[in-house]
């Protein structure tokens, strides 16, 4: 663990958080390099929110250390962090402009700075006319946009998004997703916490899986898939090949005419394929099936 490494936006070192008699966060260590989109996964009650609150300096860790850009995390760092909690809301009676200016000022911006930044964002989302609208006059999806702007208005170095797409229609989901990519391109590090695995696979480079307070899996999406692959392939041919499979020790997982899902044990797939080719069987398609993060997630959680 390199505590002085300021290339790491965030470093957790054996962080522990206890509530009453249960461990919400159980010796979690993590290094988050600058510019990543990092997925934080875990079932409900796994300790994700507890961990996020520690990173946000909302609560302190009972044991261990948290470093922000190589320095111990203090409440001064909150101006560098943007947090969009899963359970979120806005002051219903306040006007959009007032509300956003207030939240930006609380993050340490001056009034003038906040309004400049807000102008950029409202123009970007094409919602400048909302400035004097009350929050309660907006639809839920519109409120989510305001909420997103409130999270990023102070140009945070670290963005923590907890289920950012809940309550958004596909169009707005894409809109926000593009903004996340754009911010990431500009150097913002993103922690992305969700249950939606297909989003994780699509968006994140690295992920961590938390269960019962422990970090049970961490690494890049590609690497984790590689580690958990089961030598499964999809094979499509022009005739029945059942007779070839068994002698080669290849199991059929499922079959639909000449479309097979097969599992190789340690048998060399190349040797098997050349066998088929030698017998003049036409191979229409052959590709590896990697496990989805969802499958790995369920498998790992059940293992524990």
């Amino acid at each position: 663990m390199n505590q002085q490494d300021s290339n790491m936006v965030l470093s957790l070192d054996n962080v522990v958080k206890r509530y009453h008699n249960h461990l919400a966060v159980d010796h979690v260590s993590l290094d988050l390099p600058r510019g990543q989109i990092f997925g934080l996964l875990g079932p409900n009650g796994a300790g994700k929110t507890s961990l996020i609150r520690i990173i946000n300096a909302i609560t302190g860790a009972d044991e261990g250390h948290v470093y922000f850009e190589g320095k111990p995390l203090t409440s001064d760092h909150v101006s560098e962090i943007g947090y969009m909690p899963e359970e979120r809301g806005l002051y219903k009676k306040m006007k959009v402009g007032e509300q956003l200016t207030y939240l930006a000022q609380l993050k340490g911006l001056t009034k003038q700075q906040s309004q400049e930044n807000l102008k950029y964002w409202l123009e970007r989302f094409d919602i400048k006319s909302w400035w004097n609208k009350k929050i309660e006059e907006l639809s839920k999806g519109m409120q989510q946009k305001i909420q997103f702007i409130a999270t990023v208005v102070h140009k945070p170095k670290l963005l923590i998004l907890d289920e950012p797409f809940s309550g958004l229609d596909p169009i707005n989901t894409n809109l926000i997703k593009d903004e996340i990519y754009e911010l990431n391109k500009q150097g913002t590090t993103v922690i992305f916490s969700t249950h939606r695995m297909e989003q994780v696979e699509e968006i994140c480079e690295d992920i961590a899986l938390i269960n019962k307070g422990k970090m049970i899996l961490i690494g890049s999406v590609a690497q984790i898939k590689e580690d958990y692959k089961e030598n499964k392939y999809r094979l499509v041919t022009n005739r029945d090949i059942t007779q070839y499979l068994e002698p080669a020790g290849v199991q059929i997982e499922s079959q639909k005419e000449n479309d097979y899902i097969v599992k190789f044990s340690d048998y060399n797939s190349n040797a098997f394929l050349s066998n088929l080719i030698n017998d003049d069987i036409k191979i229409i398609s052959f590709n590896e099936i990697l496990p989805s993060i969802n499958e790995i997630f369920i498998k790992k959680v059940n293992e524990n």
Partner: protein
Amino acid sequence: MHKLWLIIKREYLTRVKKKSFIIVTLLTPLGFALLMFFSGFMASGKMNSIKQVAVVDDGGILQNNPLEGSQMKFTVVNKGIDEMKSEYVNDGYDVLLHLDKIDNLNETKVNVNYYTDDKMSFFTIESLENKLSKAIKAYKLNHSTIDKEVLAGLETEVTLENGLKDGEGIGDNSSKMASGIAQALGYIMGFMMYMVIFIFGGMVMRSVMEEKINRIVEVMISSVKPFQLMLGKVIGVGLVGLTQLIIWIVLIGVAMMIIPGLMMSSMDSNTVEMAKEIQNNPETANAVSGLIVELKNQNWLLIIPVFIIYFLGGYFIYSSLFAAVGSAIGDDLGEGQQLMMPIVIPVILAIVMLSSVMTDPDGPIAVFGSMFPLFSPILMPARLPFDPPMWQVIVSILLLIGCVILFVWIAGRIYRVGIFLYGKKVSFKELTKWMFYKG
């Protein structure tokens, strides 16, 4: 500090800018004035109907001692009681009284029968009994051998005059009028504190609950500490209350200066007559001028600032408790009632103690009540017009400040745990545990 200021500013401005705030602030003194006017009007009895009372006076008791009353008009009729019983309603009377002859002047118990279709109130019956008893006394006196002059000489009216009125010597230099005014002022300030605690304390509680229910608090605490959020809210709402109070003091002060002048210029014949009556009647004239003099004599320069200190102190103690309860209950107001009990009980106790403090402003209950910080915000302002010893005021204020710090701290400890907790029924035991959770 900067963030705290921002929170205070928001809490203050969103409330002060509301139309309802402006309306309430301006209309409340008007409402009070109306209330006082009406209660005065009611007390004067002008609203009540006048009862017509027919009296059958067999013994001629009322011949030289006619009955009089503001609510009743008495007419002695020269008909027999049996005849009257069937006729008095048709003759336009509400009540029929029948006075028997008094044969024995030493009889100390006399029964008088009355007949009426309406039900007579307790007070009407009692006032009739008093009038009749006076009339019979006068009748008996006329027919007795007692020398009336001697009797009149026995009647003595006592007026307590204060010997120190000229400012010599030491001691309480207040008159009876001053005590009356002090008492009225004491009650007004005591009840104002009571209202402040519940109105603005309740405002803080509702606001905390709202933030918790619509989850804005989750967003807020990623920027500010829970304690800052709570303190900002308590101070912001407190300033709203203070603004209102100061506007009221100014409005009432201005009204007291302007209204007498306005009344003089816009008097109609009726009020002119009344004013003349007041001038002609030396007692009323004295009372009115005495009232004004005594009101001016009150030590406002002490009372107003000290009242504001207790206003703020009482507000901070109770509103921080309300904030703690608000954070613990979430969206179920029902269970909040139970948690509010420990806040409500001391306030009610203080109000109960208020009347005994008013009757004995330097007694043990008054001294204890105005020292104990949960009661003092209500009871000390009530004692102020009675010139309590200065050391008691100072000790009480110091205790109050200490208590404010303690309660704000306790409330902050509960608040920071409570705002994150959803859907859980909270007990007092739980609340005490929260106080000792570490950061």
